[in-house]
């Protein structure tokens, strides 16, 4: 049985075809104007999953970079402070050696040295109280403004704590960015300040002990340079992890773009083809619809 085809059937089939064309055109238009090929999750569920994961990772790694920058600032500030500290101790070493060699020497020269030693102590105190963003970098996690305070008798004591300052610089990776006061300046009772006090009093009354003091100074120098080394290692570690994070962000951004963004060249080509196809169907429709027996009956 051959199928009867009526005008209505022809019209509705053609309209359905046109509708299909229109809707494909409209999808391509939306992609071109938004620049995205995933405008809602149903456009590509797998792509949506990837895009969302990439976004989360990019955000987190960007934060790691911020944390790393902050950590590097901490460590950089510590490095400068420790460098100053080492210079101070070296000057102290020179002065103490001089005082020790003078032997029974000149009380005037010893007095001059004592004055300078006292001044060096204050300088060391100010180094020990270096701050970064309002926090003393050698104070651990104290909320106080300074790590060390000096009382009326000139005795210096530590008013910070022993907390570690950590920065998360990669997934499951934290790096300590502060140097503890004991690592830099020594434990309470035998730190550099009590050493300064000892040297001050030895210069006045017990020159014979100055050679022991020299070995204390040498220990203190060793401690401080070792702290510098620790700081340097942490600095390098964070720098390396930061570079990793930066590269990761770049890669992820590029991956995100390839999943989410529309390939403009391809989209425009598809759009042009679709337009041509739409025009062709309009043209065919206009010709077919005009055919009718009426035109031939006279």
């Amino acid at each position: 049985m051959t199928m009867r085809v009526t005008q209505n059937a022809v019209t509705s089939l053609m309209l359905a075809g046109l509708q299909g064309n229109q809707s494909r055109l409209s999808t391509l238009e939306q992609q071109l104007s938004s620049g995205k090929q995933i405008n809602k999750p149903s456009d590509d569920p797998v792509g949506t999953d990837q895009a969302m994961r990439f976004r989360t990772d990019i955000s987190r790694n960007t934060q790691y970079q911020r944390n790393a920058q902050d950590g590097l600032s901490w460590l950089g500030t510590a490095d400068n402070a420790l460098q100053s500290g080492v210079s101070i101790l070296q000057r102290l070493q020179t002065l103490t050696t001089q005082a020790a060699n003078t032997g029974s020497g000149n009380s005037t020269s010893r007095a001059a040295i004592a004055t300078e030693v006292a001044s060096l102590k204050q300088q060391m105190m100010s180094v020990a109280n270096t701050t970064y963003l309002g926090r003393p970098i050698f104070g651990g996690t104290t909320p106080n403004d300074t790590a060390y305070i000096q009382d009326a008798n000139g005795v210096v004591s530590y008013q910070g704590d022993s907390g570690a300052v950590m920065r998360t610089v990669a997934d499951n990776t934290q790096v300590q960015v502060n140097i503890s006061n004991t690592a830099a300046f020594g434990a309470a009772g035998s730190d550099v300040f009590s050493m300064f006090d000892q040297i001050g009093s030895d210069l006045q009354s017990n020159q014979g002990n100055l050679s022991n003091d020299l070995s204390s100074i040498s220990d203190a120098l060793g401690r401080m340079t070792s702290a510098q080394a620790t700081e340097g290692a942490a600095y390098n570690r964070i720098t390396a992890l930061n570079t990793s994070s930066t590269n990761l962000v770049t890669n992820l951004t590029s991956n995100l773009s390839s999943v989410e963004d529309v390939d403009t060249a391809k989209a425009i080509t598809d759009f042009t083809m679709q337009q041509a196809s739409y025009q062709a169907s309009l043209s065919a429709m206009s010709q077919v619809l005009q055919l009718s027996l009426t035109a031939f009956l006279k």
Partner: protein
Amino acid sequence: MGTELGSLSTALSALQSERKALEVTGQNIANANTAGYTRQRANMQAVGGSVQPAMYSKSDGIGNGVTVVDVQRLQDAFLEQRANTENGALSSLNVSQQTYSDIENSFGEPGATGIQNLLSTFANGWDDVANNPKDPGARTALIGDAQSVASALNTSSSALNAQWASSKQTLNSEVGQINDAATNIAALNKAIVAAANAGNSPNDLMDQRDSLIRSVASMIGVTTKPQADGSTDVLIGGSSLVSGSLARQLTVGGASALDQVAATPVSLSWADSGTAVNATTGDVGGYLTSLNSTIPSYSDQLDAIASSLVTAVNAQQALGYDLNGAAGGNFFDPTKTTAANIAVTISDPNTVAASAVGPTVDANGNTVPSLDGANAQLIASTSLKPTSDTYRQMIVQLGSASQSVQQKTSTQQAVVQQVQTSRDSAAGVDLDEEQTNLISYQQAYNAAAQYVTVINSVLDTLINRMLA
């Protein structure tokens, strides 16, 4: 009868029949573009001689002309029923597709402004507090980020609620339309039966009835049962909606808001008996599914996400210490754990519990808080991850479900198109065919008129010229 005057009655029957056939063709042409019109055809039958021979009426073998026995409506009942079924399925899928599309739009993912991004910003905010625990700026910004997340959850939840309310409204109005259509079908049944009893063919009334049945079928799946007296019964799930000239009504009951659906789902029942109606296709079927399972499912998932966020942050906050040295209090209001009402309860930036280390007491008896940031860092890296993962999975699953419905809908559209074409092929008006018929009926009419002229001249010869 083989007489001259008898021949005139043959000619008359021809003229009348051809004219009737022309009228039917005219009706078809006039209704070529009427939606739902079924083409009609005049069935002609030759009139034979009298079958029972009697003294004065004997057949001589030649018939007595032609008569139009009926005007047949060329409808294929099977195709009608099939079209109704497929349209019902398509309507239901269209409603589902629209529901999913609206839900997707209310989330706005994937993108830079959705909830996923706000959760990431919130997590990073904790790290900024850890980097500078004394800075009130970082803490205030963190509270702001939290409020953004809570707001976004509130907005999404209220969008779902609004969608539910609007769907319910549409359902109510569709059921109203079904009820009206049922009443009209019953009235048409009555008129058709009366016309059939009077011996007429009420083809146009039948067309109207079929068109109403079609619209009801797309609103709610129906089956039809034509009766011997010319009426058609309409049934929903085996129960009659229209039975002869009696129509029953439907009512919508159950939940009137999204949060009541779990306890009392939206349901359709017969107004007179209260029994439930099993409606699974048509718009109504689609809306019932949306109202009772699709929208509530996403609303529940969103609530679970809000609840897990509140619990995770509050729990970790409680394990830490704030800038005043006190143990962390509630960050989010613990009594508000749905997406609609989640709210940030913390207002003093100092009460953000960034430190994992408790306070110490100094020589003067003052509380000295620790500037440790480990608790904040833990929240940044770990506490929010499960919430974020669950949210992402929900969005991906939404995308999959929506895509699958879209594919089914476009397949069903192709099926409906094909069924439509079949139906049209049987019942539609083809203008070329009608015009051809016009010509043939016209020629037959002309020939019959010519026959009358010839008989007239024969009679004239007989009466006026013979033996003149």
